[in-house]
């Protein structure tokens, strides 16, 4: 029913998609996979009229369409679950679900109908922990995610796009999502399903399309491919050989936690050693970012002890020689309208200290082309933005550096560079903690993997542990 041909798109000069073809037939579940930053979400946003493609054509039932506004896409029966947060925190669940297409009776919004329909959909998802009238901002992320799913389903679309819908869900919730997708399929609804969890892809999909660096590698019936091959297609080479070699051994303890906790973390015991990269795994909402932020002093620990000291503020964290490369570059990492130079010098200027003279050398080291230094950061590619964030911290020569999703939305080249750099830093004696949702990366980089679940440490795995082992701990199935 949907077919896209030769889709191309660039943002601020960065090419994100080129010549992508995608066709989805009614009643099919079509998985789209690819590394972070491969362009999956962008492609979906084009399907849904958020972005207009620079090149290429979209057809629905053989009729060419071009959406200038999301509402036009919806009118032709397309619904989407966006990857990033897309709800109004101040409004109720029902109001969010029917946002922009509230049912009306005699010209008036029909609250009853709205809430009833919402309640029904919640039941179908087996979700009974909250109701249509709850205000969204009071729901935890996982439940907020459910609301987004319901929002998409309520459209009664012929094509439902799901961009990492399961990212924040617990096992049983994923189960009911499966059931739901099954029902959609029976109704002849087409589903485009994006996920980093290959298991889901193999459980659900009829066909899978692999994106890499913004172009399509292939599209295959799921039966004709194994997980191993799929990963190879996504990454383009064998993982094993790809990541930099691990360090000889860990040095002295730089930082250690004993029974540390706060509003979302419980008795965390953790040691970060010089020269070691510790990987933190866990589902979204498991508290990984919270852990990093707590160590850094942004949302301090309230209980337990931290050696050398428990920072009560960011500045104290920095003073202890701790740095945090935040999860969300655009919202937490960079002042987008300031120049690269001003961004990399920000910490040094704010807290004092730091080696400003070294900046030039550091920018060289991360191979951030000199031409770009006086450019506003927002004009840089995701990869270069991330490099800028890195340099911002390297200027402070931290003893402990925390990475939260360091390669999210970063293209493969920059990704490799960042990986190499992280390892170099470790070898130079820095203690590194790395959060990543991307298991291959996590496993490839880490000397040790600590798995979080619901704000507690679910277990620790040695280097080279299997994805399954990690997922089992993370999802809380009997190990």
């Amino acid at each position: 029913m949907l077919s896209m041909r030769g889709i191309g798109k660039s943002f601020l000069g960065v090419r994100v998609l080129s010549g992508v073809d995608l066709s989805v037939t009614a009643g099919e579940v079509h998985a789209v996979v690819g590394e972070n930053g491969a362009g999956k979400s962008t492609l979906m946003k084009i399907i849904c009229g958020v972005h207009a493609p620079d090149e290429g054509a979209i057809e629905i039932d053989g009729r060419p369409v071009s959406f200038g506004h999301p509402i036009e896409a919806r009118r032709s029966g397309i619904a989407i679950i966006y990857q990033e947060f897309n709800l109004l925190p101040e409004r109720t669940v029902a109001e969010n679900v029917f946002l922009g297409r509230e049912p009306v009776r005699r010209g008036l919004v029909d609250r009853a109908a709205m809430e009833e329909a919402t309640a029904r959909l919640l039941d179908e998802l087996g979700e009974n922990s909250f109701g249509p009238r709850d205000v969204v901002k009071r729901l935890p992320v996982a439940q907020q995610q459910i609301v987004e799913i319901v929002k998409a389903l309520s459209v009664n679309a012929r094509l439902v796009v799901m961009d990492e819908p399961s990212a924040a869900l617990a096992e049983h919730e994923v189960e009911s999502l499966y059931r739901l997708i099954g029902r959609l399929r029976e109704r002849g609804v087409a589903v485009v399903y994006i996920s980093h969890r290959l298991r889901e892809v193999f459980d659900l999909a009829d066909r899978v399309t692999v994106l890499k660096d913004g172009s399509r590698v292939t599209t295959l019936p799921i039966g004709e491919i194994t997980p191993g091959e799929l990963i190879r297609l996504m990454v383009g080479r064998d993982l094993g050989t790809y990541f930099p070699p691990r360090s000889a051994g860990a040095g002295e303890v730089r930082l250690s936690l004993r029974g540390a906790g706060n509003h979302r973390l419980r008795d965390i015991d953790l040691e970060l050693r010089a020269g070691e990269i510790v990987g933190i795994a866990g589902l979204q909402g498991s508290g990984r970012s919270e852990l990093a932020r707590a160590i850094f002093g942004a949302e301090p620990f309230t209980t337990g002890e931290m050696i050398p000291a428990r920072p009560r503020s960011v500045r104290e964290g920095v003073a202890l020689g701790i740095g945090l490369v935040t999860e969300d570059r655009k919202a937490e990492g960079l002042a987008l309208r300031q120049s690269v130079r001003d961004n990399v010098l920000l910490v040094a200027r704010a807290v004092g200290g730091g080696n400003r003279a070294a900046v030039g050398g550091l920018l060289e080291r991360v191979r951030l082309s000199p031409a770009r230094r006086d450019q506003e950061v927002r004009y840089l590619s995701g990869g270069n933005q991330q490099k800028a964030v890195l340099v911002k911290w390297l200027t402070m020569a931290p003893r402990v550096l925390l990475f939260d999703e360091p390669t999210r939305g970063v293209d493969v080249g920059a990704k490799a560079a960042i990986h190499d750099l992280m390892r170099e830093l470790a070898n130079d004696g820095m203690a590194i903690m790395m959060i990543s949702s991307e298991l291959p990366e996590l496993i490839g980089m880490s000397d040790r993997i600590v798995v979080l679940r619901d704000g507690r440490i679910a277990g620790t795995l040695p280097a080279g542990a299997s994805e399954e082992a990690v997922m089992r701990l993370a999802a809380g199935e009997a190990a």
Partner: protein
Amino acid sequence: MHLLTRARPRDPAQVLFLALLGLVAAGWALVALDGGQFLTLESVVGIQQRSAALGIVAIGQTLAILAGSLDLSVAYLISLTSLVAAEIMAGQDGNIGQAVAAVLAVSALVGLVNGLVITGLRVHAFIATLGVALIIKGVVDHLYDGPAGAVPESFQVLGYSRIGPVPVSALLWAGVAVAAWFLLSRTRLGYRIYAVGGNEEVARLSGIRTGRVIVLAHVLCSVCAGVAGLLLASRLGAGAPTVGTDGGYDLESIAAVVLGGTALAGGKGGVAGTVAGVLLLAVLDTLFNQLEVNSFVKDVVRGVVIVVAVAVYARRTQGRPA
């Protein structure tokens, strides 16, 4: 910012109505000590008369602010519309129809301009409406150097008649308030005003044409100002080029709205709070009148009250972001 640290806040409107009761009680006591009587028929009527015009403007302002915008042009628009009304009526009952129509048309047009400058030319609402305010001021000052036109007896009913203790003007205000409440809680436009004010991007991704919503909010806001202009014209028996600015309706309406617990950033709040906010200011006024406190003390107290109130809401609703 986190679920667990967030205590369930009471709706500011409720808080405010409680405060209102408290104030009335306090007023009663104070005036009694002063040997007077606080809630005489006249003072009750006075409170309503005094709040009607501001109340109506504030309702409109609420819509603009909820949509994430704001309107600094209302004061001059009020002056303009009072003149339009009085000039067209020219003392003739027969002209009332046209006059009202003209006022609504003029104000709607101004609202449209405000909205289009903001959404189309992408000028910040603050500057856009300030600029439009200047434009109107220029026109008014150019055309008029004093009260003009005449409002026929029959229309002055609006400004002076009352049913028992309730002035017609207060009824008009109530009408506007109910209409706005209805709009916000029962119509799509209302829902979308909240959505756009809450988060324009989310609204857009959910298929809302955010531009239109903002423009409409401004049209409604200006129309409310127009209605206030009609009311004032009927009270003054003529149009006055300074009635809007003398009343300080621009900043006072915004103050009343936030006093009513509507977030200046938009997407949060409602008319109930605004009504309470306006009444609170009016009761304060009356109280000061009765105690013959001079207008300077009044300003000081007003300023403090507004800031403190908003600070209280801020406490209730949000912790500190990381």
